[in-house]
Each structure stands twice: as C-alpha cells, then as structure tokens.
C-alpha cells in the first residue's frame, strides 16, 4: 500500500509518502494507526490524538473504522483549512 502524510502529520513522521506492506491482522484504519504509532517517537506523536487526525482511503474521506487492503492509497492529515 501507499501511505501519504500532509501538513504537521508529515512534519512529525518526517516523510511525505512511503510504500508500506500491510501486516497480517490489520483490517481497519484504526488498526493501521496502532501499528504505525510503534515505528518511532515521531510517528507516535503524529498519531497520538485521533480527534485532530483525518484519513482518506483512495482519495475519499473515511472514518477510522474503515477497512483497509494491501493496494490502498491511504492519506493521513489534519482537518483541512483551505479557502
């Protein structure tokens, strides 16, 4: 799968995008977040507060309960502030 990060989520993870192999047993966005949080202190900080985290799977907004699969494009970012 492809993971993308924007705004301060990108600054905390230290990368804007990466290829990632979906681990066995990870079925939802929330479970993916739990795995990503373990990778480093930066990732842990980026994913610590779900209330300020938004997610898109294949460029559609989803909730953290949304299912994920190995060929998804998954993006994490703060609430949007355009306009």
């Amino acid at each position, binding site marked *: 799968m492809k993971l993308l990060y924007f*705004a301060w989520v990108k600054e905390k993870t230290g990368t804007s995008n990466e290829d990632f192999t979906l681990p066995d047993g990870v079925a939802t966005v929330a479970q993916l977040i739990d795995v990503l949080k373990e990778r480093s202190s930066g990732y842990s900080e980026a994913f610590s507060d779900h209330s300020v985290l938004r997610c898109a799977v294949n*460029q559609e907004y989803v909730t953290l309960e949304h299912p994920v699969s190995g060929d998804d494009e998954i993006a994490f*970012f703060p609430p*949007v*502030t*355009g*306009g």
Partner: protein
Amino acid sequence: MIRVQFEDFDLGNELAQMTRDNHAIGGLCSFVGLVRDMAGGDDISAMTLEHYPGMTEKALSEIEAEALERWPLDGTLIIHRYGRLEPGDQIVLVAAASAHREAAFEACHFLIDWLKTKAPFWKLEDTPDGGKWVDARDSDDAATSRWDKKQPAAE
C-alpha cells in the same frame, strides 16, 4: 470548471470568460479569498498552501457537481492556488452564474463554504515565532452544515 494552480488569476478575465458566450446569464456572483497580514494576533509575513494532488481535484469536482445539482446554474468556476503566498495575494476564486441572482448568490456561498471544510488544503503561516499550521475552525463547520439537506419531516 475547476483549476488548482500556483499562478495568480485575473478576476476580470475569468468572470468575462464565464459569461461571454452565454447571454442567458442574468447574474454572476463571485467570491475571492485573500491572504491577510494578521491572524490570531500574529503578524503574518507569508502563507504556504499545501494540498493533496489528485484528491484536491476530485473533491473540488464533487463540490461543483453538488452545486450544479442544487441550483439552476449556467456555469461555475473554482480556482484555488497553492504554494507560497503573501499578504494581499489572492488564494481562491469561486463564482456561479445563473439566469437570476438568487441562485448565483446561494451557489457561490455554498461553493466557498463546502470548499473550506471538504477540499484537502492546509495553510502554514509564517509568524515572528516561526511556521504555524492553521487550525480548522468550528465556525467553518457551522457554515458548511448550514447547507445540509433538510431531512423530510417524519410522517
């Protein structure tokens, strides 16, 4: 039409193109968003807009399609810039054309309200204390929900 671009836009030219070949249009309403030099008490020297290429265009197209479904429009335009902008610079243009003013006003208002909470853009402000990511505002959510479709009354 939607455009996501770094380049500035010419308001007069853009609006003229919307109406040039359609003389059934009786009203054209536009909104332009600008970079301010103050935000929350901080002096802002510049603002950098980041976005999610691909999803941005998809989200803006969906917002435009929703407006075209809700109002009898003869044209809509959304231009949103990204990259580094300075106070006074234009950020966004939304416009809606219709036979009559009411649909043009309402659709224009709808376009900017929905865009602010649905299009994947993020603003980084340069302040004297360094870069600050702009927080989403509850008032923007309230402005968006004003356009929620009313549920049919229960029988």
